[in-house]
């Protein structure tokens, strides 16, 4: 595998006696968006901090484009761009000075490259204003600009859509997809929102209590867990009919069946023939809790 850009092997972190991260293994490939999904406190941020060299792992290795983060820190960091949590830039400096500040920390970045990056994130008109006058969306874009200054191969974004409005979230999503598809970056995105990951990522790792409990493509992991919600009248009779074909659950007046595209039409036809009116048919994305329940076999999220 030559297109592996980030490789994590047996990563562990112990604080005091408590093991916070319990042996993570995963790889990022060129041009993919990789999601890190888990509830708050699952260890996503701790993991990201280890990837970016802010926290020392207790054991295990992280390599970025073949350079070990601990042994070859400066070389590894040349290929990495990141925003850990919010992009906390200097509010008392202008956007331009902020970028200049971070460009000075990189080997040979010209002003022209800074200007290109600014144009790329679309901040041209306000770049000389002080950052404290920026909106959250603009700060987010400036944050991305500083992460992209060194033309990284790997981009790590911790909760990139946190605090953005719906338009901002959409914009951010397109931006990230564009980076992966057209610029060939590997992007690692963490989120606690299932819908977010589903729309954005190619592959996803699900974390819980410091462990990755599953790594798979979004397709396999989430889409297959999608369900079809039926609202039929009368309910009891409808349930009996659907039970003939598949597993059925009843909750809050809805009947849930697995989502199998070609079967759905057939089932609804049968229901109609039996004289049952279908009031509503809905695809249901599983909520995170349900997904965890399925993956962990009943252990609750806490």
């Amino acid at each position, binding site marked *: 595998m030559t297109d592996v850009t980030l490789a994590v092997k047996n990563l562990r972190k112990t604080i005091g006696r408590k093991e916070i991260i319990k042996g993570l293994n995963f790889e990022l490939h060129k041009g993919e968006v990789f999601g890190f999904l888990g509830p708050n406190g699952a260890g996503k941020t701790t993991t990201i901090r280890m990837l*970016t060299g802010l926290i020392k792992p207790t054991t295990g290795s992280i390599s970025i484009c073949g350079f070990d983060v601990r042994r070859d820190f*400066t070389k590894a960091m040349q290929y990495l761009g990141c925003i850990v949590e919010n992009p906390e830039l*200097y509010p*008392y*400096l202008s956007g331009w000075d902020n970028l200049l500040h971070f460009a000075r920390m990189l080997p040979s970045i010209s002003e022209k490259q800074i200007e290109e990056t600014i144009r790329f994130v679309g901040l041209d008109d306000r770049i000389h204003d002080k950052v404290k006058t920026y909106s959250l969306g603009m700060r987010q874009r400036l944050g991305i600009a500083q992460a992209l200054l060194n033309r990284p191969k790997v981009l790590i974004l911790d909760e990139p859509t946190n605090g953005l409005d719906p338009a901002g979230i959409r914009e951010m999503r397109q931006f990230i997809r564009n980076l992966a598809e057209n610029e060939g970056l590997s992007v690692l995105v963490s989120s606690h929102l299932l819908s977010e990951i589903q729309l954005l990522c190619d592959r996803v790792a699900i974390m819980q209590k410091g462990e990755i409990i599953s790594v798979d493509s979004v397709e396999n992991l989430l889409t297959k867990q999608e369900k079809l919600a039926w609202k039929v009248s009368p309910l009891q009779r409808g349930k009996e009919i659907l039970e003939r074909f598949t597993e059925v659950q009843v909750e809050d007046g809805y009947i849930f069946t697995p989502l199998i595209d070609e079967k759905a039409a057939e089932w609804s036809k049968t229901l109609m023939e039996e004289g049952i009116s279908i009031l509503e048919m809905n695809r249901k994305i599983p909520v995170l809790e349900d997904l965890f329940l399925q993956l962990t076999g009943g252990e609750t999220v806490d």
Partner: protein
Amino acid sequence: MIKLIHNEMMKILARKRLIVIALITAVLVALFTYAQYKETLERQEKLGSDWRAQVQAQIVDISNRLSSSRMSEDLRERLQITLKQSQYYLDHDINPTEPGAPSFVRMFIENAGSMFIPLLVMVVASDLVSSEHTLGSIKLLLTRPVKRWQILLSKYLALILSISIIIAIVGVLAYLLSGVVFGYRGMNAPIITGFTAQGGNLDTSEVRLVSQWRFLFMEFGLVWFVAVVVGTLSFMLSVLIRSTAAGMGIMLAALISGSILSNMVSSWEFAKYLFMVNLNLTGYLSGVAPPIEGMTLLFSITLLFIWWLASLFVSFLVFTTQDVY
């Protein structure tokens, strides 16, 4: 490395700390100048206005005493030095009771060296690292392809540069502002130095005359050294404590307790190993008795150097190994 220091200076300047410091200094200098001016007026009223006659009388008096044979060698030397000084005043038309700008600067720096300047330095030093934590920008700073010790070193060098600028600001402002009132003469006036107070006696074996500008130069050197030590200690606190306010509070408490201790603890010998009672280095030059017996200029400098080295070591050790959350 120059680029990194440039970054740090850009941040310090953008927060306008140095301008605030310059303003504070200007206000204080103006106040002191006025106070000094008042005092001079009062003294002239008391002593009469003809200072030349007084100095002349003093010279005659000393000459008479010197011609008497029953006198210890020690006293003779001291009197000769005083004689030389008085003669110089007369020859160069300097009124010893009326300070020129250089004398004012000397007085100001002697009084500011152990408290005021360390305070100014603290304003810059104490949030150099902790503000990055408070802002969260530390996470951006430490994920660049630059080693942590280089980042800290650039901050430290920026601090040293700022300290030098602060002291230059204090010196220049004190000279320029006070000169408006007192005139700018007296750079070459002789200053007596070399007294050492030992066990209640004044040891005058090392006493000599030094020209004012040289004396000022030495004093500024010592004050700079004190400022660097205090700056480094605040810098360490800034690395250790994430909260700027807490760091500043601790440093402030230490500085104030230093000046209280200096007045109180002459019997508590161990106190001389605390850095804060050793800050008045210029006192050794002008012959002020040290707060605790047995303290010398060399002792204080060595002690401060050890404190400096230790805090620098701790800063770098902690900064390069700590986990950043």
